[in-house]
């Protein structure tokens, strides 16, 4: 009768044990990598919701500015803002589009301020312009945080053997929140 000890000491047994050990190590690594990916995914989701919050704040401030300067601008300009629809869990493409429209709206507001010095000098308009600038910076921060997390996650996913863990867990590469061309330069919202 072949005992376990005899089997393990035989060449076949030693090879099987080594293979089992390797498999165990690989599985352990996959589990660890899977957990890391899950944590990264949570971070990405948190950062994405940070973008939602920033977009929503920015939208709110822009709306206030538009309300404050309603009498000074044409109705069609107001439509730009009206066309922005925000909802929770928007895909990144939609977020990008919304952000782009908000940028257009911010430029419109700035132009109106330039055209009407009386409006530009009003205290509330100045405060709201500062708020626009601040919300823009918050949005950029949220975008950079999201992109930094996505970058780390995407790098993990494409590298072996974390890619196996990613496939097992169903974690996929995430889309970056692309900055608009105008944002690549430092935005100057100073008055």
């Amino acid at each position, binding site marked *: 009768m072949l005992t376990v000890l005899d089997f393990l000491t035989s060449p076949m047994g030693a090879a099987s044990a080594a293979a089992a050990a390797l498999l165990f190590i690989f599985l352990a690594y996959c589990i660890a990598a899977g957990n890391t990916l899950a944590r990264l995914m949570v971070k990405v989701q948190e950062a994405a919701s*940070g973008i939602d919050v920033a977009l929503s704040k920015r939208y709110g401030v822009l709306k206030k500015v538009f309300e404050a300067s309603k009498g000074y601008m044409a109705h069609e300009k107001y439509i730009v803002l009206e066309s922005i629809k925000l909802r929770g869990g928007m895909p990144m493409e939609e977020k990008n589009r919304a952000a782009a429209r908000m940028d257009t709206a911010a430029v419109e507001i700035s132009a109106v301020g330039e055209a009407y010095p009386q409006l530009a000098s009003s205290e509330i308009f100045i405060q709201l312009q500062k708020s626009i600038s601040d919300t823009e*910076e*918050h949005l*950029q921060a949220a975008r950079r945080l999201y992109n*930094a997390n996505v*970058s780390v996650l995407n790098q993990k996913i494409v590298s072996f053997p974390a890619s196996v863990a990613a496939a097992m867990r169903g974690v996929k590469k995430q889309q970056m929140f692309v900055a608009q061309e105008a944002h690549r330069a430092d935005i100057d919202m100073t008055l």
Partner: protein
Amino acid sequence: MFLLLAAQPILLFGCLMAGAKNAAFQRFLAEHEMAALTEMDVGKAPLTPRQLSMTAMIVLIIGMAAFFRYWRSINRKIAQAAAPEGHPPSEYENARKKKFFAIERTTKTLHTVLLILSVIPAIVVIPVLGFGEPGVNALIAAYMVTFWAAGAFMFTIAVWLLIALGQLVSLVCASLSLRNARPAKAQIITGEIKRVFGENSGYEPNGHFYEDPFETDVLKRYDHLAANDHLFGVYRGLAFEQMDVLFYDGGLPKTGQAFLTSDLAHKQNGFKGRWIIVHQPKAVAGRFYIVSKDAYADERKRFKNLPGLSEVFLEDTEYNNRFVVYAQTPHDVFYVMTPQLIGRLKKFADRGAGKPDFSIRLGFYENRIHFVVSGLTDAFEHLFGAFDLDASISEESARASVRRDLNLITDFIDSLFGPKEASKC
């Protein structure tokens, strides 16, 4: 006795240092006719510490020569004395004579040695080491050791008392000098601060921050904090404060009544440096810290253990390699640390690279940046820093040294907040 003698040069060093400071400061006051300040001038004392030290030296040399002459003459008399009539010299007397002759030989040798010692420092040590403490101390130490070796204990005690008295007077003089120096220092610093930062700035020699530095956790929570040289003002539209700080655990000996950050030489159980707070335009919800990886690797563990903090990586790889960021809310880091600010921080760190003990340690708390620099030359203490007896302090050099110390504040704000950022405030 030996310990007292061994400690003597050290004590004298302190004495002369105080004397040197005082002498230099007196010259400074006299040169610039600070009438209000010279009222308490220690120049009214019969002897300045420097004069006192030199007088003690001369008295010591003359006294030493006189003592040896007297000792040798006594010796000779005893040695040459004939035995009483009718009593042949006893063995005891012979032995006594032998002993005295031995002393005679020793004193002769010592006399020669002392003469050589008096000359060598004068022609070698003092010109090489200067007329300050090292040269004089070398001389004093040589005399004291020689006296002790010769067994002239009583004489040594007398010399020790003489010098101790000199020290006492010197310390009193130094104390008066410091009292004189403080108003002058405040006057000069205030003038320079107002010149650089405008009328809204100020200087409190013994002032503190309005908030508790321990609460910020930028540094570990030491047992004690001593601080002075509180400056405040506005530069490029940004309000700032600074103070010299000394954190330490356990007890710390103090010199005199007032605390000077220059008092601390050790850093093992404490932290000495400058703490600058800049009120920046962006308020953050949580707090975060940026620490140089190279200089404060040990600090990473402390930040890691602070509740609610986690390491945050920015998108700049070079930055991540050089600094470590711990934050309560990662969003705050990305909000404040714009790519421009990241670049500026790297450049600021580059400029400080190579300077002793310079490293970045920043704490962001509400809308304030706390910048802590360790171990730099004690700021705003240059008026007390002229240890060389022959050093002269001019008003311009004093003002220039204050400006150099203010440069750290302006450099920091200029580097991190260019005109554009600062103008937002």
